């Protein structure tokens, strides 16, 4: 039988990891890898005899797959921005550009997973439950929403903060109020603002900082726009050839992920669509009442700039921190879109609003759901006297 060899190996070594065994402290790791290698042979004892083939592991892996185009493009763009900044892009081959970025992004991803999963495994062991797959997604999202120049130790601290405080303190995957990846980003933003904004963090110059070409600024289009300096090509923004956090720049790559999430039914199209509608609406209002160049940016450009697309597709749709009811999802998404653009354009300090808009609406999602639930209850109570 295919694969029975691994099972034999696992069955043989299992006793060592069980209670009283020598290696018991590593039981969660042992089981985590076991369910990674194969779906167990556990069969139903009660209730429905048949169960769907989908499980949380597959669901989470599908989100990771959806992020892959964004991640690959992000790696390329790190190289692209670097070689442009030092004026050597024309002489550099495609793979050299990509590998420059690949080698810079890889350590961030490794640190994110190592620290995050390490903490998850420890908690699973202490609490005696199976390892939850939630961090598989957070672990790839966190590297993609931070600037490339973020020191690795900061990544580690932020990951630890988000997993412990924002997730495990609430009871683990499924119980958290805020999206853990955004909490990590917010933590970095408030704890180390100098490394998270400004003109110098978005492009890795490394040893070649002295080679920077004339006229190089390093600021993101939004950073420039805040200063009243509208200077970007909207199609560059759509394809992603602009400075920004590692994975957020290419709206095109993000749309590939969105299509994958919607086709497989993993991501909520309601939330995605609602968020875009909210943003477009607000963009139009701002256009109408524009008093400065930032407000005059054509409303649809907002979809391509900054972290909007990334947030709207990968962050708002986190099923745990989003609204849970279908009607709630529309309200939740629209409000995120509205708030994201308002914060982005009207807040004087920081030209990006998606992160804070989503975190704010994460906080209010249970309240939105509460009203939807009350509506459902009222509908039932209302019909009571009619039929009695």
């Amino acid at each position: 039988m295919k694969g029975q060899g691994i099972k034999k190996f696992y069955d043989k070594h299992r006793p060592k990891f069980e209670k009283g065994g020598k290696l018991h402290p590593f039981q969660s790791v042992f089981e985590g890898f076991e369910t990674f290698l194969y779906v167990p042979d556990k069969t139903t004892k009660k209730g429905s005899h048949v169960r769907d083939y989908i499980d949380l592991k597959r669901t989470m892996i599908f989100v990771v797959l959806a992020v892959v185009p964004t991640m690959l493009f992000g790696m390329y763009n790190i190289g692209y921005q670097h070689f442009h900044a030092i004026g050597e892009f024309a002489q550099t081959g495609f793979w050299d550009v990509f590998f420059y970025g690949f080698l810079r992004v890889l350590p961030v991803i490794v640190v994110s997973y190592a620290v995050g999963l390490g903490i998850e495994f420890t908690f699973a062991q202490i609490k005696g439950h199976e390892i939850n797959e939630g961090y598989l997604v957070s672990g790839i999202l966190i590297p993609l929403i931070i600037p490339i120049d973020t020191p690795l130790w900061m990544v580690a601290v932020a990951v630890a903060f988000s997993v412990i405080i924002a997730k495990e303190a609430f009871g683990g995957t499924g119980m958290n109020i805020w999206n853990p990846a955004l909490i990590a980003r917010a933590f970095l933003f408030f704890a180390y603002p100098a490394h998270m904004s400004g003109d110098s963090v978005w492009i890795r110059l490394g040893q070649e900082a002295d080679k920077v070409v004339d006229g190089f600024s390093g600021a993101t289009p939004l950073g420039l726009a805040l200063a009243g300096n509208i200077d970007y090509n909207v199609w560059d923004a759509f394809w992603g050839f602009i400075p920004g956090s590692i994975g957020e720049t290419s709206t095109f790559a993000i749309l590939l992920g969105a299509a994958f999430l919607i086709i497989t039914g993993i991501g909520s199209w309601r939330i995605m669509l609602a968020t875009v509608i909210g943003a477009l609406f607000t963009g139009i209002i701002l256009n109408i009442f524009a008093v400065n160049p930032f407000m005059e940016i054509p409303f649809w450009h907002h979809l391509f700039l900054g972290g909007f697309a990334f947030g709207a597709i990968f962050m708002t749709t986190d099923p745990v921190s989003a609204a849970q009811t279908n009607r709630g999802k529309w309200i939740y998404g629209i409000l995120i879109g509205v708030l994201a653009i308002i914060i982005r354009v009207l807040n004087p300090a920081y030209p990006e609003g998606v992160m804070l808009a989503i975190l704010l609406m994460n906080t209010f999602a249970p309240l939105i759901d509460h009203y939807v639930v009350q509506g459902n209850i009222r509908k039932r109570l209302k019909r009571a006297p009619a039929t009695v």
Partner: protein
Amino acid sequence: MSNTIKIKKGFDIKLKGKADLSIGKAVEASRYAVKPTEFSGLKPKLSVKADDIVQAGTPLFFDKAHPEVKFTSPVSGKVKSVNRGERRRILEIEIESDGKFESVDFSKGEIKTLDRETVKQTLLDSGLWPLMVQRPFGVIPKADETPRDIFITGFDSAPLAPDYEFTLKDEKENIQAGIDVLSKLTDGKVYLGLRPGSEFASLKGVEVNYFDGPHPAGNVGVQIHKTAPINKGDVVWTLNIQTLVYIGRLFSTAKLNLERLVAITGSEVKKTGYVKAIAGTAIKPLIENNTKKEVNERFISGNVLTGEKVEETGYTGLTQNQVTVIPEGDKIEPFGWISPGFNKFTASKTFLSKLMPKKEYTLNANYHGGERAFVISGQYEKVLPIDILPVYLLKAILVNDIDKMENMGIFEVIEEDMALCEYVCTSKIEVQSILRNGMDTMIKELG
């Protein structure tokens, strides 16, 4: 008056092994059993002991809390044994048939002349009473109550379920008699839910509604919700059309006769089809030499969503008219969570089997994953055509909040209605048993 109601939400699990529309050789089963475990909330007290001689309709045990609710033998013969499980819980009372199929005489005269009390008493004495289900909470009806309405479902939409249009095509008179009897029990209406185009449309004294759409359209809970929903304080009684036939037979022939066609279904059955057998019959003669024996097999009395797991040597339930045999699925699957899944049927859209919507699939009893907290939202709502918020109801039950359970609509559903939620659940949550716990709590609380 009748109308057609289109059910949009729901899901048909496309299983291999649908019963062929043919009737196999009648089964000469000598062993039968009645299982108290089939009824929720029942505390059985025996009225017979081993070696007692019984007829069809002789009480075997009764409900300790409601002694008037009797459970009777389906055949005539001898009590072979009383099988007990842990803490001496009665699992089944086995009867050895004498092959004569004699019944206790239940003659009461013309149905038209009967009053409510006589009808009740006859149903209670014959043992057909507990085959009806009370809603809310899915328990045996209380004899001293009068239901608001009575609901009959005339079809079963569950996976591989028997086709009553086929199995009961010669029973129209008994169905009409059953309806005449039931209409004596309520001051309200008797409702019958049918598929559009049904042969049973011409019945009298009953309000027929047609339900079009996927499972659970055939669940009486869905039909009630779409026609006259249950509110707090309402009590309705429900039954399926097979039970209705038994009731009709009882009153028109004065005999208890639980003969029916059983659907033999499932991917592991060699030749599917229908077999004539009396309710409570042993499984073995029904499927002997008719399963493939290629893998470990799971035998289910009923359908894959709500049926009872039985041994090959076990018995069919009184209320189940179907036997399903599927692979147990007790083996591992390397890297199953990432496989493309051409052969894996799913309600989600994450397997390539979605590209072949017409195909039928083999499903086994594996969980296909570990149990997790609620993570994915909106999944249950897609398969539940009842306007409640299922996850909120389950959470209310998990925190044992009675008011909330009431508010979230626990009166409207029983296990079978939410069985599909359990099937589709990514987090592998035991929806049916959580709901049962909630309903038990409500019963205790409301007295």
